[in-house]
């Protein structure tokens, strides 16, 4: 999983669990604990946003492959990558 593009739901959710784990383990200086908490809140909000906004996208491989085939014909340069 690459974080170079947008992080996936799985990555955000895992980061949220990790933040909670750090708070559970305890022993953090107060300033750091608050920072972890605030980050956790941000992550939870991101999760909720992704869950609430989601709409199922349905496609067929044939259509996607056609798209892939057509692109080099439409583009002037060869810049296509795997979707």
């Amino acid at each position, binding site marked *: 999983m690459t974080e170079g593009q947008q992080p*996936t*739901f*799985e990555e955000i*959710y895992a980061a*949220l*669990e990790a*933040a*909670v784990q750090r*708070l*559970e383990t*305890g022993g*953090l200086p*107060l300033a750091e*604990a*608050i920072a972890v*908490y605030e980050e*956790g*809140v941000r992550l*939870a909000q991101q*999760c*909720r946003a*992704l*869950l609430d906004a*989601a*709409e*199922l*996208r*349905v*496609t*067929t*491989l*044939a259509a*996607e*492959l056609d798209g*892939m085939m057509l692109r080099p014909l439409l583009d002037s340069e060869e810049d296509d990558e*795997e*979707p």
Partner: protein
Amino acid sequence: MLVLSVQDLLGALKDAIESVPAFADVWVAGEISSLSRAASGHIYFTLKDEAAALRCAFFRQYNRGATLQSGDAVLAHGRVNIYEPRGELNFVVDFVASQGAGVLAAQFERLRQKLEAEGLFDPARKRPLPPFPRRIGVVTSATGAVWHDIQTVIGRRWPLAELVLAHASVQGENAPAEIVAALQALNEHGNVDVIIVARGGGAREELAAFDDERVPRAIYASRVPVISAVGHETDITLADYAADVRAPTPSAAAEMVVPDRAEIALRVGALAATMASYIRTELDRRRHDVALSSDALRHAAPDIPALRAGVATLLERARTGALQTIAGRRALIASRELQLASLDPAAVLRRGYALVHRATGEPVTSVAAVLPGDRLAISVRDGTFAAIVPHQREAG
């Protein structure tokens, strides 16, 4: 006229016959007779029916100690073979089943054993399904209820994912080839995290495509984990054996492949609440620590009012003591003054006494101290006068 050597003729026959695909992979129905078991473990028998007989060799590597008896009505699978040294045609058998169950069952069992022996069903090889798949490939027919049901279930449970359909016929002659092509296409171009191979319920013969040897092989070869859902719950095809996970129905497969959005949302809420409670606990703990410290401080601090009161008391006592002492001294002085006053020579004079003294002031207190002719001074109450001591001492 063409003249061939024996070996050329037999060689040509061998090539001709063994190259025919049907003769290399064929089921023969017949009755076993003349069964013999060699010490080597190989089994030899004749397969016959009312008009013909076929000599069979069932080698040890295939027969695995099969219990066969003369008289058994069997379906034997194998390939036709020409044994040139003796000019004999025989049948190399790799699998025998009782005729009772039918050829479909026999074929299924033969392939099941064969693929299992190759390791295609190895439990250790089963891969876990990704917990949050982003793209889900589906191999099924574009028409029909299965594709529709899968869309419905995933749309409800986890719309965050993307569904990618690779259409394939799920019945008929072309089905196995199309299923294999769909699996390969999803692996190579689909960019999917998991694949569902699905077909709705039907009679066992209708599921035959999923028992075709090519399909479990393609499923095993898939880099992407595969979940299969073929037929009814009680139907298990070779595709199901090879898949990483088997679901009883296509809808069940859709449920197994994605988490439930509502459930995850609850979990996110629970995690957020847990965090809030931990941070609250931390803050309370710190506050409590601070309170303890400030309490300790307070108790260690001097009680200023009490000290002030103590000082005031001491000052008061000192003041009182001092006043008493002064009063005492005053009283003492007063009594001394009285004493002094009573001893005052002037008071003695006032009582009528006289003081005799010389002009120098030195008192005369003894007769012996005076001589006739001495000039003396006499002080009385109201003054002093002179006196001279006469020459004759008057009586004393």
